[in-house]
């Protein structure tokens, strides 16, 4: 050993007896294992999607794809055979990243167990008599990795404790003027309260602020208020006014449609109220008080949507039934006319004209029936619906349409099937409608449409992504009946989708920028509550009933 003082890495390495023989075995094993890396990675991330705490660390599909690539790299590196100082420094760095994103430690162990099992299984299946030795080498190396990554958590806790001590000491010196009662009130309030000093630094961060933002106070105290908690877009719109309040040029400022940045790099809606309130007991000059309106806004939006659809439904259903009476008369008379013309050996052109009218009447009848399906949906027929089967079926049905439009249709299914309690034919209709829109949108650019199905802890996420020009305005009433931007659209497609998805107690969201539009349909995997619950909800929302 060249250095006299043994590093912690070397010490751990010696402790588990990771030898050069192990290194050679693992290098050889890499050739056998490498073809399985992609599969192991996919299985690994599908497992994570089933668990809420672990899943919460994810910010989106792009990030997951990135993480998957780095897991493949990690496995490749694990079997590289060179386990030197640099190797373990990198391991420590990976551990630090886990700390930074807030991955609970328990998931490192359980995740490592999954990978360990996958790799030892490959060794057992493919390495024959060398399998026991490879298993031992893997155990040594993987536990060593874990030990080093755990060090990062310890480092973090030590430094946070130290910081907490400092902050508490500072607070103690300032607290003489502050009454414990007020502190309690601030803590108990179901309102986000952030105190900011004249330098724009966070000095107070109450429990609700922790709850809404996901940050713990020792992570944010002492950091700049605007940079830590306010997203860019909000700073652009309101930054100068916020600074005005902090400087006392304005006494109060209200941001009804404000935002807060969260620890997981998301944003939530917050109704902010900023007040300039310097005191003599502490350094705080500005109180930012906010109410989390994220869920409220979502519920209100959905309720409004429901009302609109219900109103259209009642009116239209009445009309549609009335249309069937004159259609009945017209159809019978046209048939009568056709029979008479045929009997009299009439001019074929006359017969053809009669035929056309007959076809048009049939088309109208079909339109009425489809429309009634939308306006007055039949109750759901719940069965277990395989997402694999459904995904394959709809892409098959649309293969021709896609190729005629020069659009590449990509289907991206999870390795393990997901079975959702739902109405098979209605869910098929949902996927067909959304995919057809996507294909149409991508037609002009010879683009691609991806159907991606992924597991979430208690839900399935069905993403339909296209490369089209995007939805112009995201607040356009795209789910409203008869709203259409297409020259030949009926404006019913997305309304039907919306209706079916909400009947399944699911939700539909859309993100759109030019070149990438993604509709995400989220459905609960378990059966929605009993039918009666849904009926009540529908009545409460003023859904038309059959008598109307």
């Amino acid at each position, binding site marked *: 050993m060249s250095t006299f003082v043994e590093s912690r890495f070397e010490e751990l390495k010696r402790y588990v007896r990771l030898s050069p023989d192990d290194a050679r075995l693992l290098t050889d094993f890499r050739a056998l294992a490498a073809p399985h890396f992609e599969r192991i990675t996919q299985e690994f991330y599908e497992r994570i999607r089933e668990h809420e705490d672990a899943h919460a660390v994810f910010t989106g599909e792009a990030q997951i794809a990135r993480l998957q690539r780095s897991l493949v790299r990690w496995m490749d590196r694990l079997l590289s055979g060179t386990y030197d100082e640099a190797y373990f420094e990198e391991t420590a760095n990976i551990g630090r990243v886990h700390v930074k994103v807030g991955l609970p430690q328990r998931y490192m162990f359980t995740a490592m167990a999954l990978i360990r099992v996958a790799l030892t299984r490959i060794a057992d299946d493919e390495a024959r008599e060398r399998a026991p030795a490879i298993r031992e080498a893997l155990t040594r190396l993987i536990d060593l990795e874990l030990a080093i990554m755990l060090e990062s958590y310890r480092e973090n806790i030590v430094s946070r404790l130290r910081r907490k001590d400092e902050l508490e000491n500072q607070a103690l010196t300032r607290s003489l003027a502050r009454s414990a009662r007020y502190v309690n009130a601030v803590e108990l309030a179901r309102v986000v309260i952030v105190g900011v000093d004249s330098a724009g630094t966070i000095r107070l961060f109450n429990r609700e602020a922790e709850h809404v933002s996901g940050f713990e106070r020792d992570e944010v105290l002492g950091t700049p208020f605007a940079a830590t908690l306010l997203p860019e877009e909000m700073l652009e719109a309101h930054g100068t006014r916020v600074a005005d309040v902090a400087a006392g040029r304005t006494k109060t400022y209200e941001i009804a449609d404000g935002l807060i940045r969260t620890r997981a790099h998301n944003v939530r809606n917050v109704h902010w109220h900023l007040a300039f309130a310097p005191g003599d007991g502490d350094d705080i000059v500005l109180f930012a008080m906010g109410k989390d309106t994220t869920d409220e806004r979502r519920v209100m939006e959905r309720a409004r949507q429901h009302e609109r659809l219900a109103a259209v439904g009642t009116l239209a259903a009445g009309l549609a*039934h009335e249309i*069937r*009476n004159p259609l*009945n008369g017209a159809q019978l*008379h046209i048939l*009568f006319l056709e*029979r008479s013309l045929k009997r009299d050996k009439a001019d074929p052109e006359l017969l053809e004209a009669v035929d056309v009218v007959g076809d048009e009447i049939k088309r109208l009848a079909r339109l009425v029936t489809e429309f009634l399906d939308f306006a007055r949906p039949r109750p759901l027929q719940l069965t277990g619906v395989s997402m694999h089967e459904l995904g394959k079926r709809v892409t098959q049905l649309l293969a021709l349409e896609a190729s005629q439009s020069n659009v590449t249709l990509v289907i991206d299914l999870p390795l393990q099937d997901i079975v959702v309690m739902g109405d098979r034919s209605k869910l098929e209709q949902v996927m067909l409608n959304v995919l057809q829109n996507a294909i149409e949108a991508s037609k002009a650019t010879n683009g691609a449409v991806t159907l991606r199905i992924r597991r979430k802890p208690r839900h399935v996420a069905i993403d339909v992504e296209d490369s089209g020009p995007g939805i112009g305005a995201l607040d356009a009433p795209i789910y409203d009946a008869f709203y259409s931007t297409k020259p030949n659209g009926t404006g019913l497609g997305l309304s039907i989708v919306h209706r079916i998805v909400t009947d399944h107690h699911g939700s539909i969201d859309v993100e759109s920028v030019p070149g990438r539009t993604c509709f995400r349909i989220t459905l609960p995997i378990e059966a929605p509550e009993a039918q009666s619950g849904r009926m009540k909800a529908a009545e409460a929302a003023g859904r038309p009933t059959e008598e109307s």
Partner: protein
Amino acid sequence: MVMDAPTPPRPLVLLVDDDVRTAQTLARMLREDGYDVDFAADGAAAIGRLTRDPMPDVLVTDMTMPLADGLAVTRYARSRRPNLPVFMITGNPVLVTRAPENITPAFVVLTKPLDYEIFLEQLRAL
């Protein structure tokens, strides 16, 4: 087996519909296709006709009509002849399938606009 009958008797259809013009065209086509047709222009007239003989072999009725609806006509007809075949024609089939009492044997529900060819097939299959 009726070997001595030269021509089989034409089945009698009672057709009930308040849309008189359409019903008369339908009746005319049915006659061309081998049926005798009696016609009633509303539910009350239909019930009146059902009090007299001969009883029809088939009842074909509209659902929504003045004075008595298709269900009322059906109930009365079945009280006279329990197994009488019944065709109910309606623009709103849901209304019919949610009828309060169970009427047995069940009747056939046809959605408007009536597909005459299919209707004729069903009629001939009786």
